[in-house]
């Protein structure tokens, strides 16, 4: 008698809020302008337990975005000046990281020249403003164009170089930019900086409360813009194309997706966006210095997206928030901050698969794995169904079939004797003993998938091999083994032996 497993009660109360649509009045779905997307993904389903119609928000991310960004927008104006600055820096860095995520995640190009693009564009915009007197609103245009050109130049080698080599190359370019700016004679006096840049913040508000507030709102708008760009690129056509290519490049190419071109497009679009951020950066500080090209800044940014999770906008923003809070919010701690960031980064890389935003998915996978392990411990293959398994079986009759067949097999196993096998060998078809009839009838009634059949060989009427049927219309059977049987009775008996073997192993 096998050990009886304890049977646990199952069942949960719903933890979500549902709406109940009624069919008497129309539901009006509205869309995000210029797209075919709905604002929110409300979807209905019949609850499988009650069959009641439930309408639930299937994608809750927009809700979290609204809550967190709304909170930021509402609370920040009431914070002190230093906190206001931290919030603005957060917005700017988050915007940079969101676009960087497009490059690394969506386009799959491992570029470390993100800050270089921001810097080059910032310098260009500032130079046009300071030396050529271009008014500040045009700085965005200049930043954008510079970003585009810089992106184009960087993109060229990306098709020739793979992963790590391209990353090293971009790191080199960052360094070249820094050295170039620092050694420019004309900027020698300011140690490579361009100062006195005009800005959207009036000069008499600069470093005043009003100026800081305006700066924050500007940075917030910048972040919103970056998120919108991310959404437009990542979730629309370009992103879809690249999604396909990521799974299977050769397949994507075969069905006519030019994924290289799509990658370059994403790279260029993101670089143009980074250019705008560069211009904004120069305006926000009213100056730009070579520190933007510094390696520590770059690595800090890198820490942000690693902590948050590469490839997702929410990851970029969350990672930025954490690192900026520590780096800029806890200035009193001094150099320990850097150690804390490094420790968090280490922990995140050690413990999670894809940053903090991937933790939920990871947890679910972990729970599912544990669940299957527990089920594997508690049930045997083809044995009694446990209450927790029954929830996954919509046709409850299957559960009884499992019980019945398990008990039937246990009985039939006792009937398998050498005499019974010999009886079948002597006469595979026709009238049999009661025991053999029972065993055969069980074999014959089994389900179609993987059911044995005999394949007559074309060269000889009495040559046979054994196959297993697919059970699926149009899908051919598979050869069980290559053995050739030279009479039909031999083949029938070979199938019988295979089935006896399957029975005894079950």
């Amino acid at each position, binding site marked *: 008698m096998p050990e009886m497993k304890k049977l646990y009660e199952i069942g949960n109360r719903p933890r979500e809020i549902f709406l109940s*649509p*009624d*069919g*008497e*009045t*129309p*539901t*009006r*779905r*509205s*869309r995000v302008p210029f797209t*075919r997307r709905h604002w929110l993904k409300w979807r*209905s*389903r*019949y609850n499988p337990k*009650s*069959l*009641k*119609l439930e*309408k639930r928000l299937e994608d809750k991310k927009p809700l979290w975005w609204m809550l967190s960004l709304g909170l930021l927008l509402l609370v920040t104006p009431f914070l002190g000046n230093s906190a206001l600055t931290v919030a603005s820096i957060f917005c700017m860095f988050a915007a940079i990281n969101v676009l960087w995520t497009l490059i690394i995640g969506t386009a799959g190009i491992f570029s470390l020249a993100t800050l270089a693009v921001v810097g080059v564009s910032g310098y260009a915009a500032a130079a046009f403003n300071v030396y050529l007197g271009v008014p500040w609103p045009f700085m965005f245009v200049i930043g954008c164009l510079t970003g585009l050109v810089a992106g184009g130049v960087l993109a060229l080698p990306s098709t020739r170089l793979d992963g790590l080599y391209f990353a090293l190359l971009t790191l080199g370019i960052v360094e070249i930019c820094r050295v170039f700016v620092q050694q420019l004679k004309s900027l020698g006096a300011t140690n490579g900086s361009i100062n006195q840049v005009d800005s959207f913040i009036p000069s008499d508000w600069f470093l005043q409360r009003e100026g800081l507030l305006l700066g924050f709102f500007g940075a917030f708008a910048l972040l919103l813009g970056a998120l919108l760009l991310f959404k437009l690129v990542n979730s629309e056509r370009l992103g879809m194309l690249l999604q396909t290519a990521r799974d299977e490049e050769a397949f994507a190419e075969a069905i006519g997706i030019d994924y290289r071109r799509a990658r370059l497009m994403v790279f260029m679009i993101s670089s143009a966006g980074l250019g705008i951020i560069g211009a904004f950066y120069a305006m926000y500080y009213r100056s730009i210095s070579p520190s933007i090209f510094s390696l520590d800044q770059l690595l800090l940014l890198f820490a942000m997206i690693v902590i948050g999770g590469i490839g997702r906008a929410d990851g970029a923003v969350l990672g930025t928030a954490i690192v900026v809070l520590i780096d800029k919010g806890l200035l009193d701690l001094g150099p320990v901050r850097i150690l804390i960031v490094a420790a968090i980064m280490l922990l995140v890389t050690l413990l999670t698969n894809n940053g903090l935003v991937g933790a939920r998915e990871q947890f679910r996978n972990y729970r599912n794995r544990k669940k299957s392990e527990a089920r594997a411990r508690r049930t045997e293959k083809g044995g009694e169904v446990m209450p927790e398994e029954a929830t996954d079986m919509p046709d409850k009759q299957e559960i009884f079939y499992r019980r019945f067949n398990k008990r039937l097999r246990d009985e039939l196993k006792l009937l398998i004797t050498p005499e019974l096998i010999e009886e079948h060998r002597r006469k595979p*078809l*026709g*009238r*049999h003993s009661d025991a053999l*009839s029972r065993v*055969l*009838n069980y*074999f*014959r*009634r*089994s*389900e*179609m998938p993987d*059911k*044995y*059949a*005999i*394949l*007559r060989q*074309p060269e000889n*009427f*009495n040559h*046979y091999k054994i*196959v297993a*049927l697919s*059970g699926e*219309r*149009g899908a*051919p*059977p598979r050869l069980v083994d290559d053995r050739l049987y030279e009479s*039909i009775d031999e*083949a*029938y008996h070979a*199938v019988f032996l295979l089935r006896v073997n399957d029975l005894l192993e079950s």
Partner: protein
Amino acid sequence: MANTRIFGYSDPLCLKAGETVDFKVSVEGARTVNAQLVRLIHGDENPLGPGFVEEEIRSSIPAEISVKRQFTQIGSFAIADDEERKLDGLQSFTLFAHFFATRIKAERQQIMGQWCVDEQKGYGLGLDPSGHVSLWLGNGGKVDQIVSETRVVERCWYFVAATYDGTSGRASLRLINCVNSWNSRISTVVPFGLDSWIEEKLATKPARTAGHVRFMLAGASETNAQRGPHTTLLFNGKIDRCGVFGRAVATDEIGALSRGEMKSGDGLVAHWDTTAGYTDKGIGDTIQDIGPNAIHLEGVNRPVRGMTGFNWRGADSFRLAPREFGGVHFHDDALTDSNWDTTLSLDVPDDLKSGVYALRLDGGGTQDYVPFIVRPKRPKAKIAFLLPTFTYLAYANEHLAYEAPIAQAITAHTPVIVAEDLEYKKLEEFGLSTYDHHTDGAGCCYSSWRRPIISMRPKYRMPAMNFPWALPADLSLIWWLEHAGYDYDLITDHDLHAEGKSALDPYKVVLNGTHPEYYSEEMMDATEAYLADGGRVMYLGGNGYYWVTGLRADEPHCIEVRKLDTGSRAWQAEPGEGYLACTGERSGLWRSRGRAPQKIVGLGFTAEGMDESQPFERMPDSFHKRASWIFEGLGERELIGDFGLAGGGAAGIELDRYEQGLGTPPHTLLLASSWGHSDNYPLVSEEVTYAFPGRGGTQDAQVRGDMIYFTTPNNGAVFASGSIAWSQALPCHGGENNVGRIMRNVLNAFIRDGALPGSEFTGEEKLWR
């Protein structure tokens, strides 16, 4: 596996000498193949018999013919006869339909619409892969859609109305649950209740489609370079009354439409009344438009008519309540006509011997036989062999061994398949038999000869039992008739159905094939009248005259049967759906309609099993002088047919029994019976009222095959050996065996005019023993 694939069919399947037969051939991997006309004499390659025997026939067919790949349109759907293109280019519209989805699948399914898949133009209403109802529009560049709130529950009736207003771009989709106590899989106790009503502004306007794109029910137009125009997005399920308005209709109008109240409101473009056209003789493929424009729909691949509709309330047939039978069932794997181009025609010479012929095609290491049956221009012989062509169609391309989990339990065999089988099944483009289920689980009720049929290939063995079945099995009797030197004509079920008794009248004796299972009323009447008029029948099969079968007079290629209530049935028609759409008759077993086969040939189905056949043993009646001449040359206790190509005996596979209660004539002599069947021969279900154990061959006396003889008026008679395996015992031992001896004794007597031997022994029995 060979790289060349050869498939073909002949149209018609059976014809008179002097008529023309068309061969439709599709070949992949070769431009030309060798062709040769052959007469088929024996099919079964079993070394215990004569093996495969064919005779090459000189004919006008060239030795080499050029061939091409031909495509098959599978799936049933209906095409609008919209010559004025009133349904194309609609800017504002309403599409409405009652529908009953039977299978949500991974592809989109169109219920109705004017939609071009490749150009993404037009409009369509259907189900998306998740089972939501969707209305989609396309302008050639962009497609937009509105999707219902709820998913459709399979096998439940719904009403859907989709409106679109071209000026505002607003679309609405309203799905109304129509489940009542009768019409669906589930009843009103299930709380799947709520309707769905969605409104949304769409970004695309529907564009006018190209000229070849047609408005369709249950499918949509697609074109590609290799195949040309064809139909995809096939729908599985029933569609009831439906239609199109040229405007977005108002809410209260939708309510009325959902209740089936139709006022021909303004802007009505088409209103298809699926219940229009029923007569007591059934209904055709045309779905009538009762609106102002009369844009009728024409069914392709026989959408199944006579099905219960959304308002069905339990009536047994469309003949009782036609308005409740608006259901038209569409299947994505239905096939009644491959519609291939004719590759080659043969004018059959007037003097060609009656026989089973085939066009033998060879190429690239592959061979195919395209069979056809030739009947003499005018009856020549005294013997007619009635080939059960209805049975050939009923089993055409059956999938039992591959798809029916119980098939191995029925046959008690492990199936034996061959490479050709896999080639046929690979693309699944040659349709199903009446033993198979469509992809949505519904039984297949139509079978046609206008498609390649592997189970009619001469060497083919039915995988589930590993012996020939139907036509290849009947070739054993043809071989024996040739061997024994009898002159015979072939006629077919189709001839008997079309011509009635006059097809049999010219013959002294008519022989049935191994399995004359599918009979129409015309065939029953003709056989009965022939016997009553002095005709002589040798019923040499099992499970004959069983299913009520019908066909349309002008479309003999396609038979219809509804498996019903009782009998050995591969499927069971849904309640109310048991009447033949092509004749208006109740289908099911002839026995259930008062015409058990015993009433005509004395025997009827009693058991089947495929593991092992047994011999017949003489019964006392075989020693009565009325019939003892049949056993001339046989010993008193000689086992009759302890050999055979089907299970090793003459009595087996499917067995028929003498039963006075079911109509066996009272003066019938029970000549012989078989004994010793295994429990894999259970008593058939139509004999089982209460179920109790012990109905198998080792315990139930009704499990046996009988051999009987009785006389009919005007010197007529029936000799019957109720076993499918009978004729397949004939070729054993070189064709000289005791089964053949009995056949000769009976045939020799039956072909003679006048009184039958033994007919004088009708006196009272005054016995001393």
